[in-house]
């Protein structure tokens, strides 16, 4: 059996994994100022993703590298054609990445405000640009018979591509809001839920519009395929669960929504990898861009060994950092551990997940849970 379709699936999975995981990081980046009313709140919001975002971003690196290795022609055409958009994307990811590390390293309001702005801007731009890039694969770009992009910068802004970008920004926003609802307490928890309720209708409308547009662009069939249908059902469920305030299930539904949106692009793309708007004969397909059989075989061994391992230790990370983050931990006065009595009281109010995990005070002996 040829490994070419398998590698297309691997790449689709890597992009999906990236958006499911980094999607809420983007959302938290966009929302951290809205949900955290003061400095302690903002820090609490950022620390909900503190241990996770760096590992999540690696999914993008690996998705890019896998495209390079398995479909060099696809990687070369896409990355050179979308040149300026990718320069902007890199700039957005860079300022966002260093914003996490640097904003808390100096105790000055202006310094923090600067990095807050960088974090928010980067977190909006990244999914927007990535959405435009992925949407363009399906919408079609001017590509000649030598597999080279022949358009200008403005040719990248195809209506479908731009709408994909906007949809992904909205999905990431909702995904981030449900994540924050799951990971914060008290007022921040309520504010996260309120943000989620405010965003949900827009995300719902955008996703339904996006799926219909995708279907019309890529398929001649009347009925939606299974993935497209899943995306629509998942986003409806997400909106309903957000209004029902079922934090855990709402987060699961937004995760499923984002996964189904990304997968639907790839499912509708196959066997093309980049549609040429110049001529269908110039379409890049999995076959005319793929690496040799030996390379694919060698990398298949590596991916089969390492991807489950990665999923294993990343899942463990999420388990280790499963408890909610409390704003009180970040108040300057509260740095010496809170009174045991107070934390007992807080624990009784907190959810079952949190109580099972134990509050940090009880880990003080260093043994941990």
């Amino acid at each position, binding site marked *: 059996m040829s490994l070419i379709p398998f590698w297309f699936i691997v790449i689709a999975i890597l992009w999906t994994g990236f958006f499911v995981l980094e999607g809420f990081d983007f959302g938290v980046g966009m929302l951290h100022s809205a949900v955290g009313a003061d400095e302690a709140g903002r820090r609490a919001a950022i620390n909900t993703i503190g241990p996770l975002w760096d590992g999540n971003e*690696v999914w993008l690196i690996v998705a890019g*590298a896998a495209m*390079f290795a398995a479909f*060099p022609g696809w990687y070369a055409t896409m990355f050179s054609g979308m040149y300026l958009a990718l*320069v902007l994307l890199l700039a957005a990811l860079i300022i966002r990445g260093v914003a996490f590390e640097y904003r808390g390293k100096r105790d000055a309001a202006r310094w923090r405000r600067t990095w807050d702005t960088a974090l928010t801007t980067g977190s909006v731009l990244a999914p927007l640009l990535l959405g435009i890039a992925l949407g363009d694969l399906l919408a079609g770009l001017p590509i000649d018979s030598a597999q080279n*992009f022949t358009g200008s910068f403005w040719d990248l802004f195809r209506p479908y591509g731009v709408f994909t970008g906007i949809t992904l920004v909205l999905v990431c926003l909702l995904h981030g809001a449900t994540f924050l609802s799951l990971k914060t307490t008290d007022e921040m928890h309520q504010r996260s839920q309120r943000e989620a309720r405010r965003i949900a209708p827009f995300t719902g409308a955008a996703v339904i519009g996006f799926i219909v547009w995708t279907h019309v662009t890529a398929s001649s069939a009347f009925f939606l395929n299974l993935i497209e249908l899943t995306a629509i059902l998942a986003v409806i469920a997400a909106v309903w669960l957000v209004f029902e305030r079922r934090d855990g299930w709402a987060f699961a539904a937004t995760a499923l929504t984002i996964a189904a949106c990304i997968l639907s692009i790839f499912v509708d793309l196959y066997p093309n990898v980049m549609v040429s708007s110049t001529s269908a004969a110039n379409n890049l397909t999995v076959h005319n861009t793929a*690496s040799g059989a030996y390379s694919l075989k060698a990398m298949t061994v590596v991916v089969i060994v390492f991807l489950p391992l990665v999923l294993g230790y990343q899942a463990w990370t999420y388990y280790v950092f499963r408890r909610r983050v409390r704003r009180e931990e970040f108040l300057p006065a509260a740095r010496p551990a809170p009174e045991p009595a107070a934390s007992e009281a807080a624990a009784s109010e907190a959810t079952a997940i949190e109580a099972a995990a134990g509050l*940090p005070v009880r880990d003080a002996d260093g043994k941990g849970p």
Partner: protein
Amino acid sequence: MNIDLARWQFAFTSVNHFFFVPVTIGLAFLTALLQTAWYRTKLEEYLRLTRFFGTLLVINVAIGVVTGLVQEFQFGMNWGQYSRLVGNVFGAPLAMEGLAAFFLESTFLGLWLFGWDKLPKRVHLLTIWAVAFGSMLSAAFILAANSWMQHPVGYVMINGKPQLNDIWALFTNPVFVWGYAKVVFAALVTGAAVMLAVSAWQLRHRGDREVFTRSARLALIVLVPAILFAMLVGDELGVVEARYQPMKIAAAEAQWTTCQPCSFSLFQIGGGNNDHTPTQIIAIPHLLSLLATNHWNGQVVGLTPLQQQYSKQYGPGNYVPDVFIQYWGMRVMAYLAVVVFLIGAWGLWLIRRKTLATSRVFLWVAVWGAVLPFLMNTAGWLLTESGRQPWIVQGIMLTRNGISPTVSTTWLWISVVIFVLLYGTLGTVDFLLMLRYSRKQLPPPREQADADAPVPAVQY
């Protein structure tokens, strides 16, 4: 024009990236050693040092990761024809790097950073070792890819395209084996020099003497063997490269005619690609023969005969790399390595005499000495990469044929300006933060705070 801009941008972003990478690799390893010392001895000093240097490590990792992303994207963005031609060989180690190493490094850094109170001590210690191991592993994969550009192996040509047919050959490539060893030792040198400089600054400025003497000692114990091995491995790497890339070594001595035995000039006046008879100052007989061939009377083929040979083999063209960069890249790297070794040896001698903490001259030298490994690393990479020119993959593809044909000069100028501004700003911020945190007081010993309080988590 386009080719120059694309090359300049790649060089600029790579050199910047490699300021942060060796610090990460070296400091991760040293921080892991400190934490192991704490785990074993239960001495409070080691815990304080672990957290102190861990903070410096984290400031660096952030910028190392994001500048690494730029490196990966640039192959496709600027070097489209290159990526198209060699992706199926060159891409494989890159994909493996992400799957096997980047995930490990990033995920476990998060666990280490935020896991102080959440993980059992032993598991927490393992997480910093996973970070150190992951960062060293990632260097292995990228070096395997880079070594393939210097000396392509494990492939067959099908329809004018190299096709991978032996993945192991990439990892047994002699250029990789020696080059990787060299990079690991250079990273340990860099990390140790940074740790030594910070400790020395603290000792000069009334930092806790007891504690920072320990870290200075650890840094020196790692630094001296690491620089010695880096020099030995570098010598062997030179021999390997002389075999596969004779232009590189001939250019490093500005040797235009074939010689046997060959001497090594300490300095030269003039030189370059248009001056074939520079004035050599102090020529050491036989030294170039030894460096390039491991033999007292080894032969080094000159640039002119090599040029003739390549023109016959690959068609007319200029196959001589930039001689000025090669000649001085080699010397800056080698001479500074000797200086670093001398500083290290001086430090070890002071430790023996138990006067390290009070020798103000040494401490001053050690602070400024931290600049040297960065200059050495940059010179070394210029020597390696500029010496490969005009090839992007030795013998397979010329650099000028590797660029993306559709990326315009305007696009290139825009990206160059954006990257320079971004890297300039972030590099400065990173450097100032490193200075600021290097000059901070240690975190207080735990007994002075509430004895029952948890170790305060490192947070954003």
